[in-house]
């Protein structure tokens, strides 16, 4: 189990962004769905060791991120693509990916090859020596994906990774995460239901800080049988589960 969360809560002032989440995730692709404000980003930040839980226990890759030495070890094996990445305009693609490869404390000898492999994997080979300020939004997103995968991480976290990617690139991204999910645990957080459907082995649905559904994509589809809300089977399941959870809260 690469992720073990036990009754994890995260509060900001009076707002409970994450409310008693317990989750155990092994290798494979885990899709984290939910509307904006459901707590997905806060959960992902806790997995990225950037945010500590307010209560509950977090174990990542078998280690406790509250302890500094273990946290550094986790971070060496982590790949993270935040929702708002930001970039250094004067850097080239290769320089940017290399910078974070070095900050991830990859052995210096392995860095050139890892950087080249990551850049080729996201299909940015022709742009390797181009400065980031000359790239489109979709390309910048792919640069972000490249830095996340450069150290061949065991735990990969993507927050809204397909923003700015055209349909063909999204297909490519799904193929990439399916491939990565063979060895690593890949968590993809998105509010675009179709994004994850085909690529995930498991999905979790968050609403108001709680995980209201967890299972295979087919099971989510089954939840939506008979519902009218949504253009695809997955969307119908998604809407049905959300509606049911809101009813529970109101009751």
């Amino acid at each position, binding site marked *: 189990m690469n992720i073990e969360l036990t009754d994890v809560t995260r509060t*900001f002032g009076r707002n409970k962004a994450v409310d008693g989440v317990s989750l155990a995730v092994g290798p494979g692709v885990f899709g984290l769905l939910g509307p904006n404000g459901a707590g997905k980003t806060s959960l992902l*930040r806790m997995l*990225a*060791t*950037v*945010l*500590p839980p307010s209560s509950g226990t977090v174990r990542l890759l078998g280690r406790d*991120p*509250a302890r*500094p030495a273990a*946290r*550094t070890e986790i*971070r*060496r094996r*982590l790949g*993270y693509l*935040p929702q*708002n*990445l*930001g*970039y*250094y305009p004067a850097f080239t693609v*290769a*320089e940017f990916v*290399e*910078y*974070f490869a*070095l*900050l*991830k*404390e990859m052995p*210096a000898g392995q860095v*050139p*090859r890892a*950087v*080249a*492999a990551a*850049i*080729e994997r996201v299909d940015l*080979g022709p742009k*390797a*020596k181009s400065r980031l300020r000359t790239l489109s939004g979709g390309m910048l997103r792919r640069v972000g994906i490249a*830095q996340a995968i450069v150290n061949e991480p065991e735990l990969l976290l993507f927050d809204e990774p397909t923003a700015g990617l055209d349909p063909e690139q999204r297909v490519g991204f799904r193929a990439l995460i399916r491939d990565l999910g063979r060895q690593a645990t890949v968590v993809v957080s998105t509010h675009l239901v179709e994004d994850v459907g085909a690529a995930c082995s498991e999905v979790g649905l968050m609403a108001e800080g709680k995980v209201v559904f967890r299972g295979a994509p087919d099971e989510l589809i089954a939840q939506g049988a008979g519902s009218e809300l949504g253009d695809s089977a997955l969307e119908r399941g998604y809407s049905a589960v959300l509606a049911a959870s809101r009813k529970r809260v109101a009751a």
Partner: protein
Amino acid sequence: MNGPDDIDLNRVWVNVAAEIWRRQPGRAERTAARLLRSPGLARALVTTPSLLLPWLIATTIVFAVGALTQLGAGQPLVWLIAPAVAAVGIAYAYGPGLDPAWELSCSMPVSDRLVLLTRAAAVLGVNAGLGLIASAATLGTHVSTGTVQLTIGWLLPMTAACALALAVAVAVRSAIAGAGAGAGAWIILVLAHGAAGGPAGAGSGLSAAALSSVVADANLYLPYLAVAACGAAIVAFATRPQRGLL
């Protein structure tokens, strides 16, 4: 790419690309990597905005102009400008909120706090060094007031101004706010001290002696130290690990 079935042309290309895309670190970076025992920290250091060549050249010119003016007109200037210049440089050393890829930097094994500390120390060191060189070159003009104070006495206010600049920059997440706070506070202090006349008493006006007492006045040592300590504490708190992104 389609070659013979048992040849992986993609792997071959990646190996070629690795060689032609690789960056050869300069000597400064390699030395830093050895000293700091971290190639990542060294790379972060040499990409500090206020340590890049254009900035360094500008800083050197400012100090040179200050020294030459001092030599020419007898007006002490190096001690006056050093703290302000350093404060501006420190504010642009990058820290939380100033780093566009900040959220990502917070998840790195080489912690953002360590990067900031290393960069700030380097900027402070470089500015102090340049200031000392300019001071040494203008030793002859410090005849009237204590030589030691004017030559190195500005190191303490420089540290205080830098701590203030960094603390504001990190707390408000704006390099320009930090630069303004550090340089501005120093200028206000100098003018206020000069207007009060310093040890010669009120009314002696903005004479050179009055102004320069802001580095020579021993009563100010403790306040400078206090500002430096507070600034450092604020920075330490604002960069604590796992603070989230608030």
